[in-house]
């Protein structure tokens, strides 16, 4: 994987080599995080070999031992991890211990739903929060500002899980609050089913984006360069966009990266509340039935997504901020 990345980096030229070199570090993050999960799964009480070998007292210790050997569970833990991760990199996550399917197969559909939910929540949050922060920063202390800050404070205070329950109660009968509609059933049905979950998941994130961008805007709007622009009658619209927001956006990008993990984690909870068949349920089921190949694969995917989002933010950072871009170039 590394070699591929470095090759790609060479093709892309020096501007992106540094963030990609940073991704070597991020690969290490992936390895460390998944290894910890690997260990943790072994610490959960309940022996998967015993469970698989058969119910209750009817199994002999010999049968359990045989199952253990078949699963490779008697290898040293480091070797087990090595076998698992090298297979995983090739897209082979093994078989579910419980369900009659490969983990990759199980994961594929679920991951799509979780990713959709996260992306919608993210989009909704940004689409709501950025314009609101512009309004709020423009008229500090005005009613619009106070109202949106109040809403912001509540958004942070209410966990997405509670918000999900609240939305389910409030929107009962108005919008779908249960289950999933794939895109093949039409965009309307699909988005209809996703709206409330996305709202529940995105609210907390939206308030963070709002607060960060608003604070950034207040800073940049009183900056010397905005004063310069005003001293030359640059239209306010352009000042807000190209001068104030563009600069205020840098800390917001950092928030995007930092919160990507929280958003994915929240998605797992929200899925359960809205009975969306995403990775959330898969993980819960996996943990309960000690189906650790499933759990490990889920965690690996989440960590990889988290790392990928952060990499993307690094690249975006370079797009927005020439100081980053040119010092690398």
């Amino acid at each position: 994987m590394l070699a591929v990345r470095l090759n790609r980096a060479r093709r892309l030229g020096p501007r992106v080599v540094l963030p990609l070199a940073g991704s070597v570090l991020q690969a290490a993050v992936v390895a460390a995080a998944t290894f910890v999960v690997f260990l943790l799964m072994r610490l959960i009480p309940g022996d998967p070999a015993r469970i698989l070998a058969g119910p209750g007292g009817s199994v002999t210790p010999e049968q359990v031992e045989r199952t253990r050997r078949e699963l490779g569970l008697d290898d040293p833990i480091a070797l087990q991890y090595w076998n698992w991760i090298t297979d995983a990199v090739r897209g082979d996550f093994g078989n579910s211990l419980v369900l009659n399917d490969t983990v990759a197969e199980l994961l594929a559909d679920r991951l799509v739903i979780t990713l959709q939910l996260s992306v919608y929540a993210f989009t909704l949050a940004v689409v709501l929060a950025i314009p609101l922060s512009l309004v709020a920063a423009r008229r500090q202390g005005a009613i619009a500002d106070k109202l949106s800050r109040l809403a912001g404070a509540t958004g942070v205070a209410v966990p997405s899980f509670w918000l999900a329950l609240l939305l389910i109660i409030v929107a009962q009968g108005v919008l779908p609050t249960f289950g999933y509609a794939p895109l093949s059933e039409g965009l309307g049905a699909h988005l209809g089913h996703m709206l409330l979950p996305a709202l529940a998941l995105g609210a907390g994130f939206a308030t963070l984006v709002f607060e960060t961008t608003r604070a950034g805007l207040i800073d940049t709007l009183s900056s010397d360069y905005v004063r310069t622009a005003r001293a030359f009658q640059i239209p306010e619209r352009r000042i807000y966009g190209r001068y104030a927001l563009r600069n205020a956006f840098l800390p917001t990008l950092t928030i995007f990266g930092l919160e990507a993990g929280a958003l994915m984690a929240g998605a797992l909870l929200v899925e359960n509340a809205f009975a969306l068949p995403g990775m959330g349920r898969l993980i819960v089921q996996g943990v309960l039935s000690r189906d650790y190949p499933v759990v490990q694969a889920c965690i690996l995917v989440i960590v990889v997504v988290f790392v990928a989002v952060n990499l993307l933010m690094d690249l975006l950072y370079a797009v927005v901020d020439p100081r980053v871009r040119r010092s690398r170039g």
Partner: protein
Amino acid sequence: MTETPTTPMTETPPADPLLALDRVEIGLAADPQVRAVDGLDLRVAPGEAVALVGESGSGKSVTAYAALGLLAPALRASGTLRLGASSYDLGDPGALRPLRGGEISMIFQDPGTSLNPVMTVGRQLEDVLRRHGGPPRRERWRRVVDLLAEVGVAAPDRVARAYPFELSGGMRQRVLIAMALSCEPRLLIADEPTTALDTTVQAQIMDLLMTLVRDRGMAMLFISHDLGLVAGSCRRMYVMYAGRVVESGPVADVLRRPRHPYTKALVGCRPTADRRLARLPSIPGTVPPIGSMPSGCRFAPRCPIAVEQCRTADPELRAVGGNVSVACLRASEEES
């Protein structure tokens, strides 16, 4: 727009000024009684270079901002601004907007922070040109490069494509000067244009400004700490202390024979040419912060010749002959 003023550089306050600021007061929006500037009058004739000097915190910058309606929201101005035949209320910043750039351009104190860090300086110049009747789009970049060349940028093509952080302080200041010139203003307000720069660059920028003022017949309000620079560039000057003008008159006269004890102190610690300092050093004490102005003469607490009366009576600015005005009870007594 580019009228060539026939008015010679005068040493008297102009009877027919280009710019007149009358009864300027700048106070906190929250508490207008707390004032950063308190009753300032100032005139600039067409083509004239006038200096506004004073220590840090005396209110020079806020005066300039008020003239363009660019005060921070925390501050509010009152008074009038006359420009040619038109008159404007300083309390209405929006009304002053049309003056910005085309009539009055300003160069700011800190070139390091006065340009947008995420846009190339060329694009920022283009923004200004688009707003002020510059050439059509396709020729605009050409004009940007020409403007940079006009302010002495050696590689204007490269500089236009640079971001501010890639340029030196002096280069950024040239960019800001080019921006101001692109609007062909009648008045240039230069707020300590060289304070943030080192000495050799300082001299280059001053040369550039003086050349431009001379060649274009542009009037200039030159804000500075540095009496050496003022002596070399301006004919008349206003000395400001704690929000008031304490002395005004022809630069040569004021510097040769300062009458206000504050001006004396400034002149006394004026750095010599070979040892020029960025900040005025050695008057004991500091400008009182706004909101805790002493009663009577504001300089009295730091004044070496203050008498009891100075702490109760607020001295008016009055003419003392030779076109010099002074706000000091003891000024005439000092004369002999």
